[in-house]
């Protein structure tokens, strides 16, 4: 597959997604524009129900039957994903995009051992193994080699077995040989999530989607998993879309952050720029809501009102009913995307003039 010249792996262009429900159409995503460059970690941050997970499902073409794309397109390495057949899409989900979900227990097969499931991740790719003697690091770093070594049957499975053990070591699981023989229910949450990460890496994806991967984990385990993910960045040649509701996690891990609110992207900027000078009123307020252990406050701030119902979203800017700086125009028109310099993008009328 040829890489696009500008270096972006994934592009969402003007993407809108609706859901048909008995109560009416849910406008889950509205004109979402997003771009992930090569080798970048982009965090998509927002509250529950803002459309983070719908974005993931749309990229993977796994929307439930009542969800459909009304407009826009998704380009992976320059190719439109909506024009792919089901078979091609399945291929992309197994080789190009790897997804790690929130709850590893529901995504691991409960009746198969870790060894079976992990080996399968290696074996799905026809070009496995790339050569007979290579370390796991070399294997993960190679995207696609023109010539593949012809190894068949038993020998291929043995290489997969050995690589699985090495990979489990790489994701810092203690005693990988034993873990290989175990079933998912025998592992703790953190260990399961490491296995999921290992399975995602084994496919050597060009895009890794991490959807709330630490939400089900405890703080100390969360720190372990995040630091693992960061240390693997140099080993694997993949871009990461990190989906989280926690701005602090995004601050620690991402290169760029996209803030979502009620199905809209409201602001995109590099992590440092976003924390130094947030522009959108929602981002500003959201940052003041997070408690920081280093600076305890007498009162936390909150955003008045509630997240809107997306069956009947507010006219104009979807944040206007809760926005302290709402103007007349905010209730009538939707703001366009404005580049505020250094690729700091913001959707707000305050910056349009």
């Amino acid at each position, binding site marked *: 597959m040829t890489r696009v010249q500008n270096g972006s792996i994934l592009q969402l262009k003007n993407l809108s997604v609706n859901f048909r429900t008995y109560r009416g159409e849910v406008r889950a995503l509205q004109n979402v524009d997003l771009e992930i460059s090569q080798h970048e970690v982009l965090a998509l941050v927002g*509250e*529950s129900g803002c459309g983070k997970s719908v974005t993931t499902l749309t990229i993977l073409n796994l929307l439930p039957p009542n969800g459909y794309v009304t407009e826009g397109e998704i380009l992976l390495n320059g190719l439109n994903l909506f024009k792919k057949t089901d078979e091609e899409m399945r291929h992309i989900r197994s080789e190009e995009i790897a997804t790690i979900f929130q709850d590893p227990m529901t995504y691991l097969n409960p009746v198969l051992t870790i060894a079976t499931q992990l080996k399968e991740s290696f074996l799905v790719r026809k070009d496995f193994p790339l050569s007979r003697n290579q370390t796991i690091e070399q294997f993960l770093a190679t995207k696609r080699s023109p010539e593949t070594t012809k190894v068949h049957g038993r020998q291929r499975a043995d290489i997969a077995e050995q690589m699985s053990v090495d990979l489990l070591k790489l994701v810092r699981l*203690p005693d990988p040989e034993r873990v290989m023989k175990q079933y998912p229910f025998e592992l*703790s949450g*953190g*260990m399961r999530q490491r296995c999921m990460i290992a399975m995602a890496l084994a496919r050597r994806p060009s895009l890794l989607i991490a959807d709330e991967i630490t939400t089900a984990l*405890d*703080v*100390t*385990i*969360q*720190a*372990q998993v*995040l*630091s693992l993910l960061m240390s693997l960045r140099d080993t694997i040649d993949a871009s990461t879309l990190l989906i989280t*509701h*926690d*701005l*602090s*996690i995004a*601050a*620690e891990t991402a290169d760029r952050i996209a803030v979502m609110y009620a199905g809209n992207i409201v602001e995109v900027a590099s*992590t*440092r720029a976003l*924390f130094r000078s947030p522009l959108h009123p929602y981002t500003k*307020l*959201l*940052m003041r*809501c*997070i*408690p*920081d*252990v*280093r600076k*305890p*406050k007498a*009162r*936390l*701030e*909150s*955003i008045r009102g*509630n*997240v809107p119902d997306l069956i009947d979203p507010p006219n104009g800017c979807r944040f206007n009913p809760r926005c302290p700086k709402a103007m007349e125009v905010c209730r009538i028109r939707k703001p366009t995307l404005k580049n505020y310099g250094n690729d700091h993008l913001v959707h707000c009328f305050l910056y349009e003039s």
Partner: protein
Amino acid sequence: MEILIVEDLKTWFPIKDGITQRTIGHIKAVDGVNLRVRKGETYGLVGESGCGKTTLAKSILQLIKPTSGLVRFDGLDITGIRAVKKIRRRMQIIFQDPYASLDPRKTVLSALTEPMRVHGLAKSHSDAAKVASELIVKVGLNREHLYRYPHEFSGGQRQRIAIARALSVEPEFIILDEPTSFLDVSVQAQVLDLLKDLQRELQLTYVFVSHNLSVVQHMSDRVGVMYLGKIVEEATCDAIYKTAEHPYSHYLITAIPIPDPHHVRKEKILGGDVPSPVNIPSGCRFRPRCPYVTDKCIIEEPRLYPAGKLHLVACHYKINFNRHQMVTERA
């Protein structure tokens, strides 16, 4: 004055196996907790999932029968169902999930008036309805909301209703079991601030249970850190976040993500996993994960040593975390 005293509380769940359902072991969810909560304060209880926070909360209220130990509320021994019935009204609990804790078939009005009726607090239905309409305003909703059903509300609003319901019986003591973990950050602060305001207004005593350390810090006067069924460190809120002395509390606090991209994590990350509460390690229960472990830790379980004013630590050693070395052995 202490409103709640918990002495050596243990709640073990038997594990049964085989045709005869023989007990083959115990899950030691709460394994010897001592606690004193003073009137009007907020006692924060933090720990990772499975450490026994919720079991402790429920055991205090006798919603789960403790295996052994003593719970005193306002001087009365409340262990045992008969004793606890007398003080049920005065101790309330607010649960984590407002979607599960409200009856979907009851209007808000009947959810708020039922506890008053059960405890005989209102003379007539109209009296109860009057109190309910005062309560609903107090928690920041409108009177019209009384005639609606739970599904018509958002998570934050439901948690407000759950708070109003707990307040309907005029309690003195409320256990808040992860009251905001189902809510979004933008709404979480509203509920926390409401709880703080109500505490001041009604002189309530809170036990605030949470895994979210930043939220506990925001709410509490004193904090107890739980690990595998035991409190390993207890101190004032300031002390625990600035000068935690137990290695577990120290690593727990440094693991919190910081909302600042310039922040560099100096500390190492704690390895390993929480052991199973069925086979609790000998000696100190934190020793398999502790980087400062010695032979003494394997043999002897540390008691709670005093480490300053209102500060208790269950660790044999005083450790300088900046230099990564042990300073002295506690006596």
